[in-house]
């Protein structure tokens, strides 16, 4: 990133423009509480578009180009390849000139990294999934991914999630009484829930009673999970409140941010009223 680029992105004007955009988009998203409306839709589409674009640019700039294309052709086409500058960490606008360079259209030079053609081919095969005649080639890529991942994970999975989890459960000797009690509770919980989901026998008599115990464990688990989910959503809401309603109102910065929020609310409310009025007018009599 050049000094001019850096000074632009850290300038007060750019910071305030970013804050204004964040405030307005946050309010637009929360306008969904009223009802589905064009302001919410706009913010939603911006979010999805930005995320997808960010993913694409990052994948190209940090992964596909340096690790695959550069490695294949020894970076010879790009004299201005990123040079590290410790004083200026690399933001994404910095190398825009490089990756949109059309100099890429030159014959490839073989290098010692030719084996990289294999992952390149497998990646291209996945894209062929959309081709009516060649889609079968994508199965090779998926077979490779599934085979490799299964081979790498399954042995460790059995050890880490089965044997290592059973060890403390079966340690009946030693340990404090509360630990023993917890182990017993886990054992009862696991067995009763398994019985609840065991449909090969009719749920009558003892099986019915045990499965009933299982439902209590399930309800507690669902309750804990739901409570945690609510807590997580609250945390996200509070963070937005912290951004929208600054507490340092004795500083010009804080006051300006609050004005930005109140202005945004007023603007959005006006927009929603106008939109409702327009929608009502368009409705056939």
């Amino acid at each position: 990133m050049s000094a001019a680029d850096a000074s632009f992105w850290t300038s007060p004007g750019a910071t305030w423009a970013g804050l204004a955009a964040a405030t307005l988009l946050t309010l637009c998203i929360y306008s969904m509480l009223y009802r589905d409306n064009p302001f919410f839709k706009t913010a939603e589409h911006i979010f999805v578009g930005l995320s997808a674009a960010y993913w694409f640019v990052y994948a190209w700039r940090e992964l596909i180009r340096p690790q695959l294309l550069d490695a294949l052709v020894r970076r010879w086409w790009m004299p201005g390849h990123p040079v590290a500058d410790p004083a200026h960490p690399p933001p994404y606008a910095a190398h825009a000139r490089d990756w949109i360079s059309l100099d890429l259209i030159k014959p490839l030079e073989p290098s010692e990294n030719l084996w990289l053609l294999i992952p390149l081919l497998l990646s291209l095969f996945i894209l062929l999934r959309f081709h009516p005649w060649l889609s079968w080639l994508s199965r090779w890529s998926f077979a490779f991914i599934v085979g490799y991942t299964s081979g790498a994970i399954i042995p460790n999975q059995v050890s880490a999630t089965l044997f290592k989890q059973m060890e403390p459960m079966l340690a009946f000797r030693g340990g404090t009484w509360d630990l023993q009690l917890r182990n017993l509770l886990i054992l009862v919980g696991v067995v009763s829930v398994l019985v609840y989901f065991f449909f090969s026998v009719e749920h009558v008599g003892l099986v019915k009673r045990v499965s009933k115990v299982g439902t209590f464990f399930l309800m507690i688990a669902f309750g804990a999970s739901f409570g945690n989910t609510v807590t997580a959503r609250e945390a996200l809401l509070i963070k937005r409140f912290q951004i929208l309603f600054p507490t340092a109102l004795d500083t010009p910065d804080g006051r300006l941010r609050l004005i930005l929020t109140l202005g945004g609310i007023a603007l959005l409310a006006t927009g929603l009223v106008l939109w409702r009025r327009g929608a009502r007018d368009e409705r056939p009599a």
Partner: protein
Amino acid sequence: MASAPNGQRARWIIFVLVAVCGIAPLYLKFRQPGFKSKVVTGLYDTIERLPEGSPVLLAFDFGPDTEAEVGPMARALLRHCFRRNLRVVALSYSGPLSVTMEESILPEIARESGKKEGTDYAILGFRPNLVVGLITMGQDFYLIHPEDHRKLRCQDLPVFQGIRNLKDFRLVVDLTASATVDTWIVIGHERSGFPLGLGCTAVMAADYYPYLQSGQLVGMMGGLSGAYQYEHLVSREGAPEGGAMRAMRPQSVIQTLIVLLIVVGNVLYFRNRKRPVGGAS
């Protein structure tokens, strides 16, 4: 709103109450009790026991969407690591958006603690495929991370001194909002045997308690409550409040409101159930 049906009106009353309970405590400062659980102190104590200069690996597997929960944990953890003069290496395997977290939070806390990039900490950015990453890092760390995010050769940086593979890290902490920790446990911890800590969202927390008792995790921060506890453990007299401490005040008030609403809802439900169907109110 005058013509709104009862359900719609009740919805709006709840929205307004939640907003008031979330915004008012930002301006009304009241003291909150500090509490700590074994789960959080496990991670804190592990860091306390590490000798100065030990390398610690932090996986930033969260993005801006979960920064509200996991961000305060990352800040508290980094403050602790830097105060103990540990070397911090940050990487991510959950997506490019998590790089923005590495590149914003780490330099912020490093500046505050007077630490230098390259000497005291390093940012490695994002790599895809955690399974491949962990297997490769377990053999040779630099095979998959030859350069840091500034394109400097990692092996030339003092922060990487003595690190050849994952086994050389004295602690690994996965700060995550997704299931990456499963892979860290199954592949990373299982193959390389490093002590593993976890910082995760509240939604995930309940799923990872079994790994604490088995010793596969040394400690865990779950959601804002976990971050709040950790901030209490690392906070010093007169230091400004951390993000989780500030957020915990409104959260306590909102949760009290939710409990009250649940109680009121249940009372109304059981009262209405006793009435005969179609009976006069």
